[in-house]
């Protein structure tokens, strides 16, 4: 069994508002293997960003909190480490890039300043060395005229360039895990493809393990090895990309696959799953997908389905498939 770099076990992250607790992430469990690209896919509001922020220890502290579970990074539980240790890990071992590249860079400091800061936070080196490294990494992510770019400010760059800078900034300390939260959603289609290619290339060259978060299964098909489908704060299906695309089990996954835009039929109206993601905490009972599910039956409204193994490497959380399994789906049963 190849080791997992990262294992998330029954993670629960909630926000506390005047209206009560909002369980944005409610028992998420997945693992990320050495060198793989894992896709996490789900509609907006499913809890993908909150999951990634939980891993980074960046859940907004005013009202958010990890209330349960473990996040094991090389067997070290990130939910329990000190703030100081977490700072050592952040940016150095685990790095993250965000959905909005333009606003994710500080407008009043140069690209060079922000890159060198990332370098010098974790490695003791002189300004000159850091500068050289910053220029190198900018070239590496495919940015032209890196020497000039170093002196530019974010507002002088396009969205695609900013995202490349963000990737450069995330990779500069050669992290073992890169979390990319919808890295291409804010970019147009051609740039989107370039950024995905770049991530794939860096994954191969640097052996960085990547969690790629997206609401677009098309993106997953292009770059990921495995995929976890998330719905309303839980993983509802998980497996190798091929298995999921060829034999999707969960009605939600099937709906998502149907909604992938097909380039051959540009004019055709896109399919979309009727209804919308329930606000976390609003459904007290039953399968959270039941209100939107075409296959829902009595049991779905009464009990919550558990994750079961459709195959050793394919888990699904749906009563339609509950009869096939033997025991609980472990996630770790997956053969390498």
């Amino acid at each position: 069994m190849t080791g997992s770099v990262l294992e998330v076990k029954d993670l629960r992250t909630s926000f506390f508002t005047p209206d009560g607790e909002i369980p944005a992430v409610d028992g998420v469990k997945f693992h990320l293997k050495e060198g793989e690209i894992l896709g996490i896919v789900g509609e907006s509001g499913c809890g993908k960003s909150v999951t990634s922020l939980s891993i980074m220890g960046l859940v907004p502290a005013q009202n958010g909190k990890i209330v349960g579970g473990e996040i094991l990074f090389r067997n070290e539980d990130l939910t329990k480490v000190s703030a100081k240790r977490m700072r050592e890990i952040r940016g150095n071992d685990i790095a993250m890039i965000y959905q909005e590249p333009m606003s994710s860079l500080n407008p009043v400091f140069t690209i060079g300043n922000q890159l060198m800061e990332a370098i010098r936070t974790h490695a003791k080196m002189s300004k000159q060395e850091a500068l050289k490294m910053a220029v190198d990494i900018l070239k590496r992510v495919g940015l032209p005229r890196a020497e000039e770019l170093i002196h530019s400010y974010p507002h002088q760059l396009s969205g695609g360039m900013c995202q490349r800078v963000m990737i450069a900034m995330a990779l500069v300390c050669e992290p073992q895990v890169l979390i990319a939260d919808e890295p291409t959603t804010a970019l147009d289609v051609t740039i989107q493809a370039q950024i995905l290619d770049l991530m794939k290339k860096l994954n191969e060259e640097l052996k960085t393990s990547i969690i790629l978060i997206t609401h677009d299964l098309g993106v997953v098909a292009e770059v990921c090895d495995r995929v976890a489908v998330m719905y309303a704060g839980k993983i509802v299906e998980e497996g190798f990309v091929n298995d999921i695309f060829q034999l999707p089990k969960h009605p939600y996954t099937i709906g998502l696959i149907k909604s992938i835009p097909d380039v051959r039929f540009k004019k055709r109206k896109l399919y979309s799953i009727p209804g919308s993601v329930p606000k976390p905490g609003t459904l007290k009972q039953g399968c959270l997908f039941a209100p939107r599910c075409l296959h829902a039956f009595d049991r779905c409204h009464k009990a919550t389905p558990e994750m079961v193994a459709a195959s050793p490497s394919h888990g699904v959380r749906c009563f339609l498939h509950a009869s096939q399994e033997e025991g609980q789906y472990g996630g770790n049963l997956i053969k390498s």
Partner: protein
Amino acid sequence: MTYIIRRFILLFVTLIFISVITFLVFQILPGDPVRTILGPEAEEVQVETLRRQMGLDKPAHVQYLNLVQGFFQGDMGDSIRFSRPVTSLIMERLPITISLAMFSLIIVIFVAIPLGIFTARRENKWSDFLLSSFTQLGMAIPTFFVGMMLILFIGMTFSFFSTGGYVPWSESVAGAIGSLALPALTIALPQIAISFRYARNAILEQSKLDYVRTARGKGLTEAVVVYKHVLKNSMIPVLTVFGLILAEVIAGTIVVEQVFSLPGIGRLLITAVSYRDFPVVQGIVLYIAFVVVLINFIVDILYTVLDPRIRLKE
């Protein structure tokens, strides 16, 4: 670059505008300066002679141009009361008022910004309540009252602080500080009450933005996140407020110089007004207007230092 040029043109236009308004106000104002000087029993011939000497018989636009020319040549006519050039009267008192204003501004900056940061980091209902009460109080209490309280409770207790009069810097630095500290604090207190909230809100607002999360995501310490990333961005809106505050501070010197018997521009102005010393009043009004416009210009320049989006805009 073009930004600075545009601001410079604006500065110029504003100065013309202000000088015209000042000029017109003194034209409309009741009371004839010539008769004020000569007294009610003066003869018509005397009046006419003096009017000609002072150039007040000329058409309005010529008078205006003379005023402008005089302003730049440092010749604003003579004081009626002191029979001395207005310019030298102002220049003698200027160092006191400028010291006082700068001293106040420094107090405001060095209290309001740290207080803003401190309170922004502890955001909850109770602190919000306490802070807004403090702000209300700070704005509601009249300056002269604050001044008198400071004289009573601090000035009378610690001999370092003088409760009135001025010691020039050239004579004794400690003495100058001692004589300016309480009046400067008097001016500063209400301004702190106003401006620290701006600093606090700016910091709170900036703290929510995406780039702050990126900064934390790099593994930076809270100190670097706040004092480097958040603070520089927060200073952009705060700068606007400090421009206004400085104007308030200058206005504040007028009252406070009375309370603390400091022989500055403010006292000169009040004396001049009560004696209908028309050239002095006009000179001071122009001086204050000029300073305020200049401050705005400096603020505009400072924006370019803080914000590359303004500096590099076409």
